[in-house]
């Protein structure tokens, strides 16, 4: 007689997957912008705005964890990690 493992509780792991396509679209756009524009000094204009809006709308519908939604709602908050001494 052994301890039988609980097999359930896998549904919670896919909370944001409905947004996978929108996330991929945003990430692709972001990565391109980061490498081609931001790093080259063209940081004056924000891009990927429509991708971000769609992705964010989706997230706000599917993000179940309240602790995470808190971060989503706090738009524009600048969270600066305390710097590590050089």
């Amino acid at each position, binding site marked *: *007689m*052994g*301890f*039988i*493992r*609980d097999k359930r*509780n*896998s549904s*919670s*792991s*896919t*909370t*944001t*997957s409905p*947004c996978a396509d929108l*996330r*991929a679209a*945003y*990430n692709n756009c*972001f*990565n391109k912008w*980061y*490498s081609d524009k*931001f*790093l080259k*000094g063209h*940081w*004056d*204009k*924000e891009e990927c705005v429509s991708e*971000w809006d769609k*992705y964010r709308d989706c*997230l706000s519908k599917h*993000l179940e*964890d309240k*602790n*995470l939604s808190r*971060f*989503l709602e*706090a*738009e*524009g*908050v*600048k*969270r*600066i*990690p*305390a*710097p*590590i001494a*050089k």
Partner: protein
Amino acid sequence: MSVNGVITETVIEHRTTQFPKIKRFSFSSNSPLFRFLSYLISLLFRTGFRFPGQGAFILISFLRDSFGQTQATMVKAYSQEHTYKHPWERVTSASWRKFADPENKRILSHILEVDTLNHNLDSKSGKLYTTRAITIHAPGPWFLRKIVGQDICHCVESTVVDAKTRSMQLATKNISLQKYVEVEEKIRYDPHPENPNEWTICRQETSIRIKPLSTLASMAEKIEQKCVDKFQQNSAKGREVMERMCKYLEAESSSRGISV
């Protein structure tokens, strides 16, 4: 009385048995709590542990050290350095893509989701602020899931990239399991002072904060109770299996005329 009858009697006797509650509680390296905590921390370590293989070692030595003390909150920090022989631009681009690349996804299969929750571009200073949620699959002992109520762990990663000064700073913290333990990982990518245009230096700092012992003690009690509960459930399941098996044997023996 038939064979079946004897079995039924035994079952009734089992049901009335009280499992003794273990009162004593010690912090040995073999105790379930020790292993539980090691597991918790190793889990959190996996979030972004950029230097695999060292987590377990750090953990064990850390836990050995800390349980000898009775401080209210135990903090421990570790730092590491690594030089990438790639320019800063490439390293930071890689950092953003790390979780999305299919090859990495296979290796980092415990990373379920990485979602951008927030971003902010300071177009004057050339600073980019980003907050991401990292969801980790944490398959573990059943009692962990019973306590935590889930087998996933959420972490929040905050990033600042300063394109003018060429620096990238990341800070990752766990959101789940905060009652028990807090792990914070800080990473900083800068151009390497010896070869700033070709190399990148990565400095990493990890701090672990374990909540007061009183919390741990009550947690240990909970684990204990869950163990007992689960044991009782499984005993019932085991008995069910036994019952069916006995019935099967009984039917077989009566048809063949052999008594088992």
